[in-house]
């Protein structure tokens, strides 16, 4: 409490730096690991850190959903896929066409630099400079998000259920062996 009284924003800054660093570090580990299992663990860490960032943006409902849906459900899907398709890669990054890939990554890096430059240039504008912890009472809670979902966004919300149904049926259809009694892995 003494620490918070002496420097009000210090704990928030430390939390932000730790969460951002673990999110970015986990993302880098994810795309560079050779084994899919290691990459999955790093991805779970990244998603938990991103959920912490959501919570610090006072989006509590989305933070909980992020842990439940991403770090829970989607990761279980990935783990099952890794169990079925477990191929050690001898060469995780292709050497064929390396020039083209390097050029595309350079172009991506340049794009990142330009966009980041714009963000830093515009950092004094109201939207990007605001650091209010809780702009409106009840901002980001289940009650207010649920109210929006069932009033303004009712049609997209109900469409999501059809999308998920189609995804379930499509997933079952695609991953079934093509011949009856065919090779089951």
């Amino acid at each position: 409490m003494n620490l918070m009284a002496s420097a009000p924003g210090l704990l928030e800054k430390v939390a932000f730096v730790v969460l951002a660093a673990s999110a970015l570090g986990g993302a880098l580990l994810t795309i560079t690991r050779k084994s899919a299992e290691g990459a999955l663990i790093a991805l779970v860490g990244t998603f938990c850190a991103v959920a912490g960032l959501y919570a610090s943006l006072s989006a509590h409902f989305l933070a909980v959903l992020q842990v439940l849906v991403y770090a829970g459900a989607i990761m279980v899907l990935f783990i099952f896929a890794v169990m079925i398709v477990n191929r050690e890669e001898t060469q995780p990054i292709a050497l064929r066409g390396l020039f083209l890939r390097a050029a595309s990554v350079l172009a991506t890096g340049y794009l990142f630099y330009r966009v980041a430059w714009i963000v830093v240039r515009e950092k004094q504008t109201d939207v990007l400079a605001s650091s209010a912890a809780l702009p409106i009472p009840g901002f980001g809670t289940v009650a207010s998000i649920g109210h929006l979902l069932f009033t303004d966004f009712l049609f997209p919300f109900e469409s999501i259920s059809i999308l998920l149904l189609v995804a379930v049926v499509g997933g079952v259809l695609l991953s079934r062996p093509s011949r009856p009694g065919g090779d089951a892995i």
Partner: protein
Amino acid sequence: MPGYCYILVSLALFFIGTAGVLLRRNALFVLMSLELQLAAGSLALLTFSRGLGDEKGHVVAFFVMALAAAEAAVGLAIVVSVYRTRRKIDLDAINELRN
């Protein structure tokens, strides 16, 4: 923390995901990188939502999450199905449609 810090983190996360999609050959890693990109987009949505004091961004991030779940289910089913027929998931080697 001011909003632009979050936007910078979101940008970095998105471009790390892009690099993963461009560089990796394993289809599983490409799907994981896509998930990273979607999470980065949601982070930017929530940041602007707080900056504007408007909760509609939260609702859109919620829809993005549902879309990511559907995408992962179908994408992984396709990967498993391709692995069954071809015995490989190397995206450079799956080029039957090319010629």
